């Protein structure tokens, strides 16, 4: 599904990623843990195609093709989804309109018929149940006046509606209380299958306790210094990151 090969990247001449290697197979969930500034969000941004990063070495291969030259919307339409750490407010554009435009762009890309307003409403009424969002939020402008928890649930709603193959969850747990965390984790778990892959980026173990990823990687100073299974998360929670630093 996704192969990251010896990826080096920098911002404004400052080296951030210093040789990342990662291999995510269909159906797998990988988690990347690390402190602030370790390069976690940079990695997520580079995979999804945000501007402003210089790739100095290496490659990101998705479904046997390099992603790096592709536009963000092409990556999205090919099945790469990112749940934003800070979902963006778009005043004046209501959520229903936005998500319908996004879904229809995906359906068009897959040579499927575009959904009309009624068809979309039927679909979305089913989807919102999974993330416990009230229908009235769909009438509001995108992320406008949403609480932190609502924003994150809204990201997961978009994920399960657009049905990506690779979902990157960038600090989806930050700013969530325990109830919202459960709802979000539940939404993600329902979407797991033998085909859908995930890259979960987080500081803490608590989201991982609900998601139970297959692999955990520790990112320090732009490199993966240790990989393991769920037991690694518990050790990190207990001992912190210092023992892994040289």
């Amino acid at each position, binding site marked *: 599904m996704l192969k990251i090969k010896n990826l080096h990247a920098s911002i404004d001449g400052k080296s951030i990623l210093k040789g990342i290697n990662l291999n995510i197979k269909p159906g797998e969930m990988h988690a990347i843990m690390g402190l602030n500034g370790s390069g976690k969000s940079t990695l997520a941004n580079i995979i*999804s*195609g*945000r*501007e402003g990063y210089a790739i100095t070495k290496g490659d990101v291969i998705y479904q046997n093709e390099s992603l790096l030259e592709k*536009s*963000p*919307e092409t*990556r*999205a*339409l090919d099945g790469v*989804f*990112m749940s*934003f750490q800070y*979902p*963006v*407010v*778009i*005043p*004046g*554009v*209501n959520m229903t*309109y*936005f*998500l319908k*435009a*996004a879904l229809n*762009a*995906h359906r068009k*890309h897959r040579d499927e018929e575009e959904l009309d307003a009624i068809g979309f409403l039927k679909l979305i009424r089913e989807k919102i149940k999974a993330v416990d969002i009230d229908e009235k939020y769909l009438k509001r*402008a995108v992320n406008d006046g949403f609480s932190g928890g609502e924003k994150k649930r809204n990201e997961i709603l*978009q994920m399960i509606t*657009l049905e990506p193959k690779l979902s990157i969850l960038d600090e989806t747990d930050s700013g969530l209380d325990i109830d919202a965390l459960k709802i979000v984790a539940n939404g993600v778990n329902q979407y797991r299958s033998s085909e859908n892959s995930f890259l979960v980026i987080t500081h803490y173990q608590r989201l991982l306790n609900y998601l139970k990823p297959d692999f955990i990687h520790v990112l320090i100073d732009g490199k993966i210094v240790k990989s393991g299974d769920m037991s690694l998360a518990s050790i990190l929670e207990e001992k912190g990151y210092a023992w892994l630093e040289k």
Partner: protein
Amino acid sequence: MREQKIISEKLNKEYEYGFVTEIEQETIPPGLNEDVIRNISSRKGEPEWLLKWRLKAYQHWLKMTEPKWAKINYKPIDYQSISYFSAPKKKELKSLDEVDPELLRTYDKLGIPLEEQKMLSGVAVDAVFDSVSIATTFKEELKKHGVVFTPFSKAVHSHPELIQKYLGSVVPYTDNYFAALNSAVFSDGSFVYIPKGVRCPMELSTYFRINAQNTGQFERTLIVADDDSYVSYLEGCTAPQRDENQLHAAVVELVAHSNAKIKYSTVQNWYPGDPETGKGGIYNFVTKRGICKGDYAKISWTQVETGSAVTWKYPSCILKGDNTVGEFYSVAMANHHQQADTGTKMIHIGKNTKSTIISKGISAGKGQNTYRGEVKIMKDAENARNFSQCDSILIGDQCGAHTFPYIDVRNPSAQMEHEATTSSIGEDQLFYCNQRGISTEDAVSMIVNGFCKDVFAELPMEFAMEAQKLMEVSLEGSVG
């Protein structure tokens, strides 16, 4: 930046309506003096009083100077190099069959075939091609209701008493430089009269078009709605591409008597000038004003201004009667080198008068967009209320948005509300849309349409769709 590139590609889409119709034109040589005015007047067989009025306006104009207070820069206008009259040679057509096929093709390119308009939309079209009206439809239906909808030059003969009574009654020729010029040389336009108690059975629509090279266009529109009547008037404009600047100085006067309602909607898409250099666009200096003369009258202006190199326009309402209502809904776009200085004036004179101002300014490329508005509450205007909202959106980092609200309150019972916001379409918003599979072009359209929707909602249905389409075309090359 990639986004910048897409933005600029989108904004750089060529002006679709920049073509020239080859029709023989009869034109007065360039220059302005009393003889030219006499010439215009005699060609139209105008009565003596009208000629005198024109000449008085001309004399007054000579004493005036061009206003300089607006936030616009343009090359000086040489009024002696402009030709003040131009008309297709073939006139007085009895049916559409007699219309020059070349002209009909022009309308086809603009997507407004007259025949289809007639059949589909129930809109009576008074098509002004340059200066002379060439086709008027739905006359019979309007006649049945006693509605007068006729070219101005004809109305002078068919309804002289109404013209004499109302011409210049809202915008006197002394009002401003461009109104004085228009009063002296106006060529044609529309006259509408809605009798007492009549609800005009259809939207009235006029398509203006500037065609002949170096021909200034000086339209005159007068709408009178008698007691308890209603009319909705649509004005839409496109112009072919030219190298030299063309001056447009129209005057629109609205008179609403007791309990009458006038809704005036404009979609303006004149040639904005060369995207790279800004050369060759239309100079649009328009005076539009309405008076709510009787109690409970209402005047509502809605405008979507996407074209012209320079826009100078302040559709206004004089709320003279008690309990009268004035509204102004505006979307103004300044892309590339366009400059727009537009807004409104609400003059509250009567008691319990109410005005609403919603202005949405969009700036892109090197465009400069200014909202300039005045709300004036006179001494006797008890319990006057105003709500103003002026929002600006910036696309890119080389454009500008400016807001100049003037508020003058002389009665302590007035309630005034003013809100203003400035925002930009950020890279974050575009990336968020991209990441959901929405192209940058679609994202910009979506965001701008969302920004404008309060105003679009005020437009009649067919215009709302045209406005959205115009917005997309006008934005092309603006955002990445």
